[in-house]
């Protein structure tokens, strides 16, 4: 028998498509898929959230987060005064929780809506020079988060997306690092939408309580003085809308809904 040595003309064991092009194609498809999944999850969770009542939510959260604080004695007086400010706002915003105010000793001006029904207000916020209307807007904004069940929504979204990503991508694949920016984008956009909605609630609460919306943009204007804008393009990935944009949206909404402005009342909350 003859030995006929030879080498094949073309290598059939490899595809000859260019890897760079294939990579770009796949990554674009993957990013689109992730954004779509986040969008669909949003709808599904929105539907599900309306079916959970606050009692169940409190029980769910009691196991998950042990963050509920009790008030320390040093700030009892301030707590009482903030609660006095909160009372008429509660009548203006329809939400299902019984809200409890806790004053946090922190120099940074901030307020938090805590899952379960606590509203945290920092001493920094009380001392930042806001008027009574300005503070009421903040309280109204946080009440808006409660009214929209934003915590439950956030929890539901995180859960669903985590399950999806684990089951579709798996634990040890390298592409989770590649796709996390697109996931972040989807979540950031959702968070910004939530914040804008809460802003509108704050505005409506002011209108309802005082008959005008003077002082609504105080907090943001104060922040703008020291605040540095994020890098161009990166504001899409932030959890809150840009300050200037928030101020503009509030002014536009007030104009559209014919909400007047008037003089604001000074804040009367001691140290």
């Amino acid at each position, binding site marked *: 028998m003859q*030995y006929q*040595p030879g080498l*094949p003309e*073309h290598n059939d*064991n490899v595809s000859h498509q260019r890897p760079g092009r294939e990579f770009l194609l796949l990554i674009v498809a993957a990013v689109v898929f992730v954004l779509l999944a986040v969008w669909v999850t949003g709808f599904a969770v929105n539907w599900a959230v309306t079916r959970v009542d606050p009692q169940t939510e409190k029980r769910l959260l009691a196991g998950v987060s042990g963050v509920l604080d009790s008030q320390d004695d040093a700030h009892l007086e301030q707590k009482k005064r903030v609660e006095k400010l909160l009372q008429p706002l509660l009548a203006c915003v329809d939400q299902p929780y019984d809200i409890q105010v806790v004053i946090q000793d922190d120099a940074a001006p901030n307020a938090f809506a805590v899952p379960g029904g606590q509203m945290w207000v920092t001493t920094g916020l009380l001392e930042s020079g806001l008027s009574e209307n300005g503070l009421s807007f903040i309280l109204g904004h946080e009440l808006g988060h409660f009214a929209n069940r934003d915590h439950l929504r956030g929890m539901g979204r995180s859960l669903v997306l985590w399950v999806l990503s684990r089951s579709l991508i798996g634990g040890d*694949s390298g592409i989770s690092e590649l796709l996390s920016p697109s996931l972040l984008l989807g979540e950031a956009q959702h968070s910004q939408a939530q914040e804008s909605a809460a802003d509108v609630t704050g505005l409506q609460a002011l209108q309802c309580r005082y008959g005008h919306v003077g002082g609504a943009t105080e907090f943001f204007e104060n922040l703008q003085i020291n605040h540095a804008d994020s890098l161009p393009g990166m504001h899409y990935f932030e959890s809150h809308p840009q300050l200037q944009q928030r101020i503009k949206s509030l002014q536009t909404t007030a104009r559209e809904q014919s909400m007047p402005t008037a003089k604001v009342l000074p804040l009367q909350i001691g140290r």
Partner: protein
Amino acid sequence: MFMTNIETVPGKRIVACQGVVAGSTVRAKHAGRDLMAGLKNIFGGELRGYTELLEESREQAINRMKQQAAQLGGNAIVNVRFSTSSVAAGAAEIYVYGTSVTVAD
């Protein structure tokens, strides 16, 4: 093209030999099949999705081997061997090799 995993093609005479030829593919399953496999990990049973996938890959690898043999001028492949290995998460590689020969009656 004849393929056997013994030394000869029964009933035929080997007149020439071109050496070893091989075919290989690396295939990944898609995320959907992964999902079903994950569920099956709980319940047990045949992973039909994977079986089909590997069968398709094997077909393709065999075809590639036959093409290589044809390029070298052979018309049969003897002593065929298969090898499967997992080379990445979710991807399996099928390698099939044999000796390319020319047979006559």
